[in-house]
């Protein structure tokens, strides 16, 4: 795998949209061509080279390209948007839409991520070493097709709307989360290792939530049906299993009613 390093040399005045920073768009290009790729600051269309210095070499294909981002890119959005392969490592905080609509490859953020992390993601892997804000692995506004595949791991805490309208894939929040987990979900798994304020599984048709900490305000629409042992992220725990949302429509598979599950660690 070839590595290309981009280092911030000029801070933008406002926020910069780095939608061009993906292994797909870098692959097969020279450093000069990469520096010529567009980036938007409000209505001004700049070149990436106006803000970043590029070193190293891009691979021939996306899968063969690793991008390392250096410097404080806290005010830059859309890293790795729609990427299909390869790798991005961001040695900083970064702003919204990291790995949005991502199909493959891997993104690592050494700092915090802002909202809409991995929005409507289809595949690949995202690792956030710090915290994430709201709408982790959520759907875009109005879409009923949220995150459908891949893995998002946030080492810190996250806000509200985790896995809204999720249909597949896995989200792991190692810290606490606020409200609305798997709302409207029709599949997928969310693991929260810390505490959750509430509203887990509201309007959920299908999907699995695992909560290792406390669930402060459980929804009335979930009913305890069993106590089970389950392996979560490599460790086995005993859980109370709740099914629901009893207030939502149900789907049937081979005559059996399908429910969403909340597994609450005993």
């Amino acid at each position, binding site marked *: 795998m070839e590595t290309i390093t981009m280092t911030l040399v000029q801070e933008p005045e406002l926020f910069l949209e780095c939608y061009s920073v993906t292994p797909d768009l870098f692959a097969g290009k020279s450093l000069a061509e990469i520096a010529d790729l567009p980036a938007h600051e409000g209505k001004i269309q700049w070149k990436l080279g106006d803000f970043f210095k590029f070193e190293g070499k891009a691979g021939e294909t996306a899968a063969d390209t690793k991008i390392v981002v250096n410097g404080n890119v806290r005010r830059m959005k859309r890293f790795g948007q729609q990427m299909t392969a390869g790798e991005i490592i961001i040695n900083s905080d970064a702003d919204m839409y990291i790995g949005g609509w991502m199909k493959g490859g891997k993104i690592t953020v050494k700092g915090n991520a802002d*909202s809409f992390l991995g929005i409507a993601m289809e595949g690949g892997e995202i690792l956030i070493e710090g915290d994430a804000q709201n709408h982790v692995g959520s759907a*875009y506004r109005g879409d009923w097709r949220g995150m459908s595949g891949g893995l998002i791991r946030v080492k810190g805490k996250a806000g509200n709307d985790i896995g809204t309208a999720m249909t597949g894939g896995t989200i792991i929040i190692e810290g606490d989360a606020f409200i609305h987990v798997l709302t*409207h979900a029709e599949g997928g798994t969310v693991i929260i290792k810390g505490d959750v304020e509430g509203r887990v599984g*509201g309007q959920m048709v299908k999907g699995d939530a695992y909560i290792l900490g406390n669930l402060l305000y459980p929804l009335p629409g979930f*009913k305890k049906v069993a106590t089970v042992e389950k392996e979560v992220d490599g460790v086995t725990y005993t859980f109370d299993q709740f099914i629901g949302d009893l*207030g939502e429509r149900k789907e049937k598979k081979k005559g059996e009613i399908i429910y969403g599950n909340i597994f609450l660690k005993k």
Partner: protein
Amino acid sequence: MPKVIENVGCPYCGCSCDDVRITVSDDGKDILEVENVCAIGTEIFKHGCSKDRIRLPRMRQPDGSMKDISYEEAIDWTARHLLKAKKPLMYGFGSTNCEGQAAAARVMEIAGGMLDNCATICHGPSFLAIFDNGYPSCTLGEVKNRADVIVYWGSNPAHAHPRHMSRYSIFPRGFFTGKGQKKRTVIVIDPRFTDTANVADYHLQVKQGHDYELFNAFRMVIHGHGKDLPDEVAGIKKETILEVAEIMKNARFGTTFFGMGLTHTDGRNHNIDIAISLTRDLNKISKWTIMAMRGHYNIAGPGVVWSWTFGFPYCLDLTKQNHAHMNPGETSSVDMAMRDEVDMFINIGTDAAAHFPIPAVKQLKKHPWVTIDPSINMASEISDLHIPVCICGVDVGGIVYRMDNVPIQFRKVIEPPEGVMDDETLLNKIADRMEELKAKGEA
């Protein structure tokens, strides 16, 4: 001879009443009498003929004072700053007609900026819920003519929409509702015992911030899981939930009116989202509709106009020339202000300085700030430029959208102060000036 003008629209709340009677002086400049209006509406008409109306744009001077300038200078200044800014934001439109809102869309498309309306701090979460779950609604006349069960959830029309209950919901006698209030069941769900709760048959004092759980409980009953309910949900006893759910199920025609109590507590859009789900459920066994208690007389307007113009009702990002983008949370005014994402601010037909959080106002104040409004308000007083305009519904007419998205044609009742422009004219002149400057290569 004083002249009586009838069928006048009221530029106050989302009821957009259109039965106002105004008596105007002989010279068409003074309003002598206002009838059929609530107390607040009356004040707006009276303000229209106040002698203290601002007549000329005012520009902030280096010493901090404001100096009168011509409209031409104000238009040129605004056009140049819009073109120069990387990401200007125009926000407001609580008190603007649709013609003005359409012209604003043109301005910000040319400027390549952000365009947002007061829904962003009001019923924006309702839009998010509508995006996710739809909007089974109706016009207010359907409620008047058919409804036998009315729910006010997190809304208090007795104060915020003074004629709502008498014109549309609880009291009127309609085609199938000849007995008026006598045959209607009114349910108010609110943590406070409001004046609206005072006229209700049922007041469910939901625990503040836990409406979502209560909706979830009602939906469980509709889906046949009443027996699985806990003894109490969100502070409401199981028996009460079952009793009220039974009333909902047996309604011939029910309507839920919801307000800020749902949009401005935790979960925001999802409170509306699940209310819409409940409405859908109820249509399997009964007939139910739902409606947002929109605040201003035409705050539904920008959502309607910009949806046909760009496909999105609010929080528009027009910076990319070829396409519009929208994602509240990113492109919403308060979020952008708090994050210091914009570099020019135009406050139009509202008062962001009074309504936004102080840190947001401070960030915006770092950049050029224009206020377009008939009145002196907090925004105008901290602006670099204040441009006065006509008052919609008083000295300019136009189309407005009522809370149920019914277009109401407003009339002009008095002449505007001499020389004062309406929003549409002013904004189109700003757009024309920008096109001129662009053509001359000055941008």
